[in-house]
């Protein structure tokens, strides 16, 4: 009898511990050239996973599940991305895949998602074309390059910052960004435009040309590493030109590469000001700092929202099925950390885009949108 009771207890215990786990696919960069931003992405996913599971999981069609992340490293390589998607769809049989950082890799993953009818929820890639392919299974939580440029152009239009010069990546993102700004601001307001190739670190020719062209402002369409080099070279050459940057340049990490004196006055578009006095951002930033010991990053916030919103959509869908989930995602309205998320007919969300500015003390203020304007320390 005692034996039977023991076995019974064991079974009960197992039943409680083995609450069914639902595998959700993640594609990200754990190694390779995008390993650093990939870490922010994973931090966001892990934080959301932890919160969902410690709250007891979620129920779909009356059955309780815990989240289990199936993570694949796509190494900023399109072939790796496509094969990871294939594997997630056929071997792991996940109902949904999230993540990716690189637009080129996302472009290789998206058709696979469509082939197997499982939604792919992007949380970082900004290439505008991704959501223009008529792929019904592709969703993007974050603002794309066009949306970011639009906000920045709207802000710059109100400033006397012309001629506006550019130093930009010689690739899709750089050339697309320059062309976008040209269209929005008008050719007449654009000054010197210089492109550089990945791996180039000497910007001295550009700096000299910006000086010779008397540009009032210079926009740096690039990421953190070249951005910090360009700013150093511009300021060291004695140019006092207004600096305009991208979302990679509005973080404490970026400040660490340079110093407050060189950055003072620089503005940049931003998808997530970690210190904004918006309640959602506040709570997230605090939790993030507690878990990871550093300033919250936009990539983490976007990815955190992506997973939470997907789980909410799964509950709405009522069954574990890619097609049903797709319809639920298309219809969902979700208030996340980065703002209100609702996908348009193309699967693109429209979260708010900010313009922040560096203050003299190494803090940031919010200049745009008007309604969220906030002073130093809140950006």
């Amino acid at each position, binding site marked *: 009898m005692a034996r039977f009771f023991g076995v019974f207890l064991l079974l009960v215990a197992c039943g409680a511990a083995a609450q069914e786990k639902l595998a959700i696919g993640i594609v990200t960069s754990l190694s390779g050239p995008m390993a650093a931003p990939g870490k922010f992405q994973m931090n966001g996913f892990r934080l959301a996973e932890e919160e969902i599971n410690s709250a007891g999981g979620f129920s779909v069609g009356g059955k309780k599940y815990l989240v289990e992340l199936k993570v694949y490293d796509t190494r900023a390589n399109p072939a790796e991305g496509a094969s990871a998607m294939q594997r997630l769809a056929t071997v792991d049989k996940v109902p949904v895949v999230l993540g990716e950082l690189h637009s080129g890799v996302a472009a290789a993953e998206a058709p696979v998602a469509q082939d197997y009818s499982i939604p792919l929820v992007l949380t970082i890639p900004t290439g505008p074309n991704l959501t223009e392919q008529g792929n019904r299974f592709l969703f993007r939580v974050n603002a794309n390059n066009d949306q970011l440029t639009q906000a920045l152009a709207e802000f710059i239009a109100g400033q006397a910052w012309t001629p506006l010069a550019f130093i930009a990546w010689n690739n899709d993102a750089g050339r697309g960004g320059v062309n976008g700004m040209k269209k929005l601001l008008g050719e007449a307001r654009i000054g010197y435009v*210089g492109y550089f190739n990945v791996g180039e670190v000497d910007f001295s020719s550009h700096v000299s040309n910006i000086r010779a062209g008397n540009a009032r402002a210079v926009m740096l369409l690039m990421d953190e590493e070249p951005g910090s080099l360009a700013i150093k070279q511009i300021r060291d050459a004695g140019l006092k030109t207004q600096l305009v940057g991208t979302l990679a340049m509005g973080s404490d990490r970026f400040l660490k590469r340079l110093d407050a004196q060189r950055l003072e006055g620089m503005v940049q578009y931003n998808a997530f000001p970690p210190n904004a006095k918006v309640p959602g951002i506040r709570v997230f930033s605090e939790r993030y700092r507690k878990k990871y010991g550093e300033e919250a990053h936009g990539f983490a916030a976007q990815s955190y929202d992506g997973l939470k919103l997907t789980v909410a959509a799964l509950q709405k869908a009522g069954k574990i099925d890619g097609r049903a989930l797709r319809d639920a995602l298309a219809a969902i309205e979700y208030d996340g950390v980065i703002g209100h998320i609702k996908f348009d007919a193309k699967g693109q969300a429209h979260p708010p885009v900010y313009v922040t500015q560096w203050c003299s003390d190494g803090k940031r203020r919010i200049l745009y949108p008007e309604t969220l304007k906030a002073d130093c320390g809140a950006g």
Partner: protein
Amino acid sequence: MLSAVLEQTLNGLMAGSVYVLVALGMVLIYGVMHVLNFAHGVLLMVGAYVCHFFFVRLTGSYPLSILLSAAVLALLGIALERAVFRPLQGNLRNQVIASLGLILVFENLVIALWGPNALQMKVAATAALVPLGEMRFSVQHLLVIAVTLAVVLVLFSFLKFSKFGTAIRATSQDRMAAMVVGIPVERVDWITFGLGTALAALGGALIGPLFIVFPQMGDAPMVKGLAGILLGGMGSVPGAVIGGFIIGIAESVSTVFLPTDYRDSVAFIVMVLILLVWPRGIFGVSVRGED
């Protein structure tokens, strides 16, 4: 316009200095061993990492770190000559393949040791800014040019006036004849190889603080240095110096008149134009076994 050209010339002198250091090493090695070491740019990168290591982790003294880096890379060069290039002597094709393989080996070795992300190397002493009229240049920028010019002078005197320098020149001109008159050509080989890689290390150690230290930093200097060699005249030491500077200044000054997209093309168009006029390059020398 004039000041823009002047400023770009100074930019070009700096970039050109690095090309010169790479070109000098390659041309010296090519002269005595008749092998083009395509891994030379990667050795520049390794030199920068080694200098970063000595400077940030060990000594804290920039000049000392430069010397140590050059010494370590000289030893590495000697080891490469002994282990890779000497056994393949007389087989140009295999030497070229081996040097291409070394690129992969060193790039991945550096990534394994230091990680794929770029390192910053802040040298406070040379970060000061020197105003030149409206322009400003960092001390480091001018240091790159000055050190390169000094190295060029020392190297020229060494090749011209010292006994061993003469032995190097003799071996470059005719290896067999050099052996006949008793020059230890194998010793010339490994010393020249060590000297060449030390020059590459110097290039890496000098541009490290100016920009960043990263695994691909030697790629562009290698290609541009090679263009400088061809332009100056294959096998000619003064040609490598002039060629390196011409490439650096031409690509930099061109950006005043042309979009920067054409920067790299300009360097090679200049090379092709000069080769059309002087098919052997400006200081074209006839190298043993070439005709």
